[in-house]
């Protein structure tokens, strides 16, 4: 059977205007690459944990779906019938798997951080044993949005509650420290310390804080 006759590219659902097409199911596109079953399972786990990252996977296709790989799959329709194929790997495939795992680790860490930020909602008035305010949901929203905007750097952060009912994020890295406190209106108070040098600001916009964070830390 000629390879071209059985070619099956990942299916795409209709996307909204101006957005990238997203495969119907990641399993399809990943299976097409003949990835090891364990990697497929991990990718499914990622899909379950990090819904938003699904769109990022669309970026994989141009890189990870070369015609040759799909053709190879087409010649051998089911890799389950060819166990030796499961272990076959190319540098590109290895790199892709590593990238996927990194992406998953980052995605899971980000979600865990956001979950621990949201956990602060459970703190009631007087949570510190004195007269602290309950944590503001608006502050939590802004903190979560900031975590998303921060990208992979967010993995260094840990949340802390402020007695004024605000959410704080702190990061420690050797001699460098960052503290952020999110006001209800989306502005941020921050303190960055690198060795003895301190840079601080009050009621700053998130994009400005990210610029300073990237420059200082």
């Amino acid at each position, binding site marked *: 059977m000629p390879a071209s006759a059985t070619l099956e590219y990942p299916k795409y659902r209709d996307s909204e205007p101006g957005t990238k097409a997203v495969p119907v199911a990641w399993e399809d596109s990943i299976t097409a690459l003949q990835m090891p079953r364990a990697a497929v399972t991990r990718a499914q786990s990622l899909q379950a944990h990090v819904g938003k990252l699904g769109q990022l996977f669309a970026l994989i296709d141009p890189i990870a779906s070369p015609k040759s790989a799909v053709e190879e799959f087409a010649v051998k329709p089911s890799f389950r019938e060819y166990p030796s194929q499961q272990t076959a790997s190319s540098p590109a495939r290895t790199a892709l798997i590593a990238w996927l795992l990194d992406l998953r680790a980052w995605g899971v860490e980000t979600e865990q951080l956001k979950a621990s930020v949201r956990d*602060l909602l459970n*703190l009631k008035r*007087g*949570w*510190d*044993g*004195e*007269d*602290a*305010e309950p944590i503001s949901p608006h502050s939590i929203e802004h903190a979560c949005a900031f975590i998303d905007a921060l990208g992979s750097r967010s993995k260094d952060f*840990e949340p*802390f*509650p*402020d*007695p*004024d009912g*605000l959410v*704080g994020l*702190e990061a420690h890295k050797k001699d460098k*420290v960052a*503290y952020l*406190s999110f*006001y209800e209106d989306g502005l941020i*108070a*921050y*303190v960055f*310390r690198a060795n003895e040098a*301190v840079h*601080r*600001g*009050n009621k700053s916009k998130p994009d400005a804080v990210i610029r300073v964070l990237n420059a200082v830390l």
Partner: protein
Amino acid sequence: MLYYRLWLAYFRHVVRAFTQRQSPHFVADFELLGREVFSESHIRKSAKKVKPGLFLHKKSRRRPISVNRMSLANRSLFMALGRIHGQKRDHTFYGVAEFTAAKVRTVQGDDGWQMQVRGTPSFANPLHADLTIPEDKGKDYDIMIADQLCEIAEFRPARE
């Protein structure tokens, strides 16, 4: 019994202070101070450290940071006192963040303000002391001060 032992420790301190011609309210540099922790969210996951929220205060109600003068009595006495405070507030007592008075006096703002500590005995706790806090200069200023306190503090859990 607990309060009796606290007052006994305080009288011993008063006598010692008078013989050295010092005010009993004066806190010497070598004295160990401890701030009680009543929220798990004040404790950092890694290392024996605390988070800045422990040393932050409400904008609407700024008052000195309460600490205990740990050097003047056994640590177990303060742990028992912490548990009583926790019961009164209906909170779990997790432990104490400890630091010396000398290190507290190194805490300063970038405008020259310097933190001080002074004994403020009360009937319920004669070994109580207060750390001064700056006037309201913004949340970032407060966090900067809290960061320095976190750096010098070491967390000791209630059950070690």
